[in-house]
């Protein structure tokens, strides 16, 4: 059951990127970002209000946490503009590659206080398979 929930979560994520990409033909990326974020904020505020045990509290986190919105806007804006131009599937596949690379760098150097985990060259064949898949998608 929980696997199905995860699969549905992934499908919804894919639908979001695809639909935002379509919307990019009509609205600019910041208008799309505004729609995405305000819907999310309303749903979360509703959830906090509905779950009586959860209280609204936005203070007390490290200062850099309060810059997270810039990243959120950048994420929605860049994925929308890319999905509108090169398609949602390729956008998501390239984004996953970017995530793998940055995770490996963060692990290797121990950024963001994560435990250091040196990069293993044994992972290169996996990256080569991903690159081969991306090249096929780009040229299709």
């Amino acid at each position, binding site marked *: 059951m*929980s696997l199905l929930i*995860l699969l549905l979560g992934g499908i*919804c*994520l894919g639908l979001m990127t695809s639909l935002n990409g379509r919307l990019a033909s009509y609205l600019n990326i910041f*208008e799309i970002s*505004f729609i995405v974020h305000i819907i999310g904020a309303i749903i*979360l505020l509703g959830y906090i209000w509905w779950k009586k045990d959860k209280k609204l509290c936005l203070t007390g986190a490290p200062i850099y946490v309060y810059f997270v919105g810039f990243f959120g806007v950048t994420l929605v804006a860049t994925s929308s503009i*890319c999905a509108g131009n090169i398609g949602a599937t390729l956008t998501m596949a390239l984004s996953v590659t970017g995530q793998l690379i940055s995770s490996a760098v*963060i692990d290797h150097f121990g950024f963001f206080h994560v435990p250091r985990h040196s990069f293993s060259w044994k992972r290169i064949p996996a990256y080569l398979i991903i690159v081969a898949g991306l090249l096929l998608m780009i040229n299709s």
Partner: protein
Amino acid sequence: MLIFIGIAVFNGIINIINKMINLQAKLKLGTANGTLINYLEGTVISLLIMLFMGTSKLTDLSYLRTIPALYFFGGLFGSLSMVLILIGMAKNQISYSTIIVLIGQLGAGLLIDSIVTQKIVPVKIIGIVLVIIGVVIDKYLSRKSMKKMIA
């Protein structure tokens, strides 16, 4: 096309930094409040940029009516995915969860792309399968070396 390929990879890099900061927010404020900060700030920043840019099409109702209603559901699906992934991840290992989410994500993307372009490209499907296989192998190898390090 090359510029969009670069931007999409950059999107992935930003995604991980965003996740790291969100994790800190969730640790300090709880999942709901930590995520809410992201959405509230995103709303305010987007609104400020829109105001700075001048007129917005969002105030033009007759223009908005020309856009297919379904296209506005992206934000709703995004919020739904956030909730579903949080529930699903609580019951599964993270690396395992990531792969399942990726399959759903790329599958849905392929479906929409095929509907929009009115064609199914087999080479593209092979490409998606290769990307998923690569991610599965990478997750397996990184877990194995992590276990070795702990041992």
